[in-house]
């Protein structure tokens, strides 16, 4: 009897928690489906006459499609570059031997915890000097670099768990390390690398500070930087702003729903048992 009531309380708590977790997203969706007039009359109610106009006018009033494309390109390129660089370095750290190996790996660990804002001013001036400011390559480069320490750390930990015999056998067979890495190690690391790529891509997609400072040209903004401009400009049109916010979340929602179990499994796999 007591058991049942305890579990009921627990269920109630968790349901409440789930509602709190999801309500803001729901609020964005339902507001985006209202007209501004309907929102003004009843901000929290269900949309009585849902409309998709807000989503359509997003693309009219601001270059939303362009911003989305920019975010996709920046995420893709920076994550690909960081992953490639990190894979090489992690392989060398685990299977090779070089001067400063320990220092280098520890440096990566320390830099993982470094506040990105510390790099903002000097990287801004650097980008001005090399003429990349206000271009997508500027943030792409910065993101790629910022992702490296964590990626190296993550991959090193995984590579260390690979069966050593495989690598040794291949070395004795005379395979080059490039070949071993891409023919043997990487195929074994697909799931891990995919997890890393997703985690990094989400970080890039969500990043605001660098995008805000580095990209002042409207066609060169990422979605997040564009959203803040949008907010200031259309703050009195709540449904439109919510439509923009929701669209920026949508890819993540889809990704999460499509691979939710993989997501959580991939994440928690890192904790060890």
């Amino acid at each position, binding site marked *: 009897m007591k058991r049942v009531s305890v579990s009921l309380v627990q269920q109630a708590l968790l349901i409440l928690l789930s509602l709190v977790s999801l309500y803001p997203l729901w609020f964005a969706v339902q507001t985006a489906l209202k007209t501004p007039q309907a929102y003004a009359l009843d901000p929290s109610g269900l949309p009585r006459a849902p409309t998709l106009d807000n989503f359509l006018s997003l693309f009219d009033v601001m270059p939303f499609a362009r911003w989305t494309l920019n975010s996709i390109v920046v995420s893709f390129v920076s994550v690909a570059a960081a992953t490639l660089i990190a894979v090489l370095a992690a392989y060398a750290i685990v299977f090779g031997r070089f001067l400063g190996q320990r220092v280098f790996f520890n440096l990566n660990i320390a830099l993982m915890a470094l506040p990105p804002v510390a790099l903002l001013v000097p990287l801004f001036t650097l980008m001005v000097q090399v003429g990349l400011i206000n271009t997508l390559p500027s943030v792409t480069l910065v993101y790629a670099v910022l992702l490296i320490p964590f990626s190296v750390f993550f991959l090193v930990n995984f590579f260390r768990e690979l069966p050593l015999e495989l690598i040794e056998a291949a070395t004795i067979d005379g395979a080059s390390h490039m070949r071993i890495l891409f023919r043997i190690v990487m195929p074994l690391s697909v799931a891990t690398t995919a997890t890393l790529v997703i985690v990094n891509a989400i970080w890039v997609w969500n990043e605001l500070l660098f995008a805000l400072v580095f990209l*002042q040209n409207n066609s060169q903004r990422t979605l997040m930087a564009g959203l803040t*401009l949008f907010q200031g400009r259309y703050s009195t049109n709540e449904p439109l702003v919510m439509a923009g916010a929701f669209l920026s979340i949508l890819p993540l929602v889809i990704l999460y729903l499509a691979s939710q179990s993989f997501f959580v499994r991939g994440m928690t796999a890192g904790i060890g048992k």
Partner: protein
Amino acid sequence: MHAERGFRRLCGFAVRDGTDRLTTITHRLRGARMRTFSNRTTRPRFRAGGLLALVAVLFAGSLITACPDSARAQNAATASGQAYAGKITYWFWGESDIPGIDKWMSSMVSAYEKLHPKVTINLVPQASDTLIGAFRLAAQSRSGPDIDTQWATLPTLTPYWDKAAVAISDYVPASETSQWLETSENAEGGKIVAMPIYLIGVPLVWNKQLFKEAGLDPNTPPKTWDAFLADCAVLKAHGITPFGMGNKDGYFGAWMFAIYLTQELNSLDEIKGAIGNTGSFSMTQFDGLLRNLYTMMQTLVQKGYLNSDVASLDLNQGWQLFPQKKAAMAFTTDGNVLSWGKALGEENIGVAEPPKWGHGKLADSYDVTQSSDEFITSWAPNKAAAAAFLVWLHDPANMKALYAETGAFPADERFPVASITDPLAQQLYQLDTAKTSIWLENYLPPQVDNDADLPAGQLITSKSGSPDQAVEIWNRVIQKWRVQQIPEYRQYRKWAGGNG
């Protein structure tokens, strides 16, 4: 090519287009003369008679002013809009002053692109709360828009001092600039830095229905401060929010500063003297005026005459209360008055000067400004093309279209006043043009505006500080600005000392 550029640098003026050359020369000269012999910034009128005499000192003048801005003159002769090829990026702001101007501007851009197929104009609407910051950021990297919009006077002059902007009068003939209104707001060293598009005043607007509901005379706006407070009390007693504004972004406070601190001043030299520390008006005196202002604002807050959510709404959001009939009065721009007139019915709203509160000589001025000012950036590759487009916006037909779309008054002599037929608009036009026009916020360096003017007002409306603390913010920020922005401070002093 290199030789040619070098020559231009040396001489400082263009030898290209015969027709407009004289203008160019005169402008160059005026700049030179003003800088060398005088630091008055009131814009002298173009006089053809003086031309020859001026030509005589031209060469010397351009040598003295030397190279930095001389290269700019190269394109000066081309305001008539020849066929250019290229892209012009235009950071534009105006919609929150006068709803509808974005639409007008887009239609202008497409029309212009049709007229000049080789020109593309990339129009980027800006937000109020990042307007200054975004451009300052871009200016640091010496890249960004070809044309930018800033508010008048200091927000426009500081980029010019910083050499991020060029004077538009270097690229536009005086025959054209003389048609623009209120250019003195952006005059510096005998040049005009930016082009106005419209004039905008900020009246008190009141809802006649709500006045009637509260038993007030719907046709008598409060003229004095006592009358205003009395009306507020009556409205509040009837459960009506007397005054609806938004100050989360700090702009209601900035407006109170612009409208009411002006009324405490005897002349603009006082604020310039205090901030520029020129000795003509002490900071202590200025503090006293500020303290009065914030005490007055605090009273409004404490008595509950402002909407309860004034601190959690941006200015634009706070404005929504009036057309939603949730507030009986507000300060807003001409453009919004007209659009609210459409929403509520023109017969249901009235406009008047803000109730008088201060006792200075300037208390009899009116808060009107050209507000949105367009200037060309120093890094714009084709300044002449940018100038040509801006000048084209002032084409009488286009100005008429602006009026038709927004109801805002074009800042152009050529706009026929007779075409204002709407009674509400006529009233607004009268307010805008009857008195000396001042928008005091424009006399603050952007950093002081951003770090003192906005937070000090927020402190009061969020009930988190006293008027004394608000004044303290001003002192601290002005001090910090003087130490941190030494070149800008020097320029400001110069400007403050020399301007009547």
